[in-house]
């Protein structure tokens, strides 16, 4: 995959060895967005109960979503890869965690695959902060709740204040530090997102 970190051995059973309960009715999504090498795949792997899966979606060269396969048939189509893992919530619900590139040219994936996400994580590292600007703008514009997670691979050379300033991040958007390789750390990122969404729900109903 695109991560520049050395990946730990893939944990967890393959999905065929860990089928969902037959009673599962509801699937939810969280999307992890970020540039290449920032650790999206690593984060997904850290929280997933199955070995993460990867697949792809097709797009035309013009970047338009292909709801039909005209592009596949005649014109040249290209594909964008993304990966995902899952967390079984209970006997009736499951959460899918997607890792996807957040740059502008990949954004068509959002409407096709990630619409309806309960929220998003924008994963950044300080080498390529600019790769996350577009995703942050777009999430703000569409009103999708999100948090920003600074993946520092266990090193803390930058202060979060510097990162927040460099991203020009709205003070209301949580910014957390994480080491995407660590399950506990990756899990805390998702928890901070869900708590953020919960506070937005509470604020909305208080109005």
């Amino acid at each position, binding site marked *: 995959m695109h991560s520049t970190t050395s990946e730990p051995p893939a944990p967890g059973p393959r999905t065929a060895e860990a089928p969902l309960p037959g009673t599962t009715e509801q699937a939810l999504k969280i999307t992890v967005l970020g540039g290449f090498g920032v650790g999206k795949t690593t984060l997904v792997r850290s929280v997933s109960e199955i070995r993460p899966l990867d697949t792809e979606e097709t797009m035309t060269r013009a970047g338009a979503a292909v709801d039909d396969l005209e592009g596949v*048939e005649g014109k040249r189509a290209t594909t964008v890869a993304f990966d995902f893992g899952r967390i079984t919530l209970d006997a009736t619900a499951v959460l899918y965690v997607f890792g996807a590139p957040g740059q502008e040219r990949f954004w068509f994936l959002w409407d096709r695959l990630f619409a309806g996400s309960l929220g998003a994580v924008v994963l950044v590292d300080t080498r390529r902060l600019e790769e996350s600007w577009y995703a942050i703008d777009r999430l703000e514009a569409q009103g999708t709740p999100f948090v920003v997670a600074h993946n520092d691979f266990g090193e803390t050379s930058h202060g979060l204040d510097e990162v927040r300033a460099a991203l020009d991040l709205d003070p209301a958007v949580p910014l957390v530090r994480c080491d995407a390789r660590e399950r506990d750390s990756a899990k805390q990122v998702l928890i901070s997102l869900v708590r953020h969404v919960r506070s937005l729900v509470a604020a909305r109903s208080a109005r």
Partner: protein
Amino acid sequence: MSGAHRHEGPDRLYVITSGRSGGADESLDAVTLVVAESEAVPGMQSEHAEILRLCRNPTAVVEVSAHLRLPVAVVRILLTDLLDTGRITARHPRPAPSPAQPLASPDVLEKVLVALHNL
């Protein structure tokens, strides 16, 4: 990335869908859960048979895509065939957050939080 189909030309994908270029059921979300309602039968298109085997337990559309190593757009067409003939059923996500109602319900959020804490 490892998708075997990435070495296959567009023609191959076109053959898998029997030349169709659209008509997928629009309600099939990336995480719609697919459940087989019948067994594969001899003579069935191999991709259809594979889906029925895979979906004995609820399986999300993206998981079907990953296992078949076919793009999501192609899988949606194949799933629509099986839906139309009653060989599978689909459990769609509850009314997804929308511009009018962009946030998940408190009950759902609590459920997710509990599961994450227990991870």
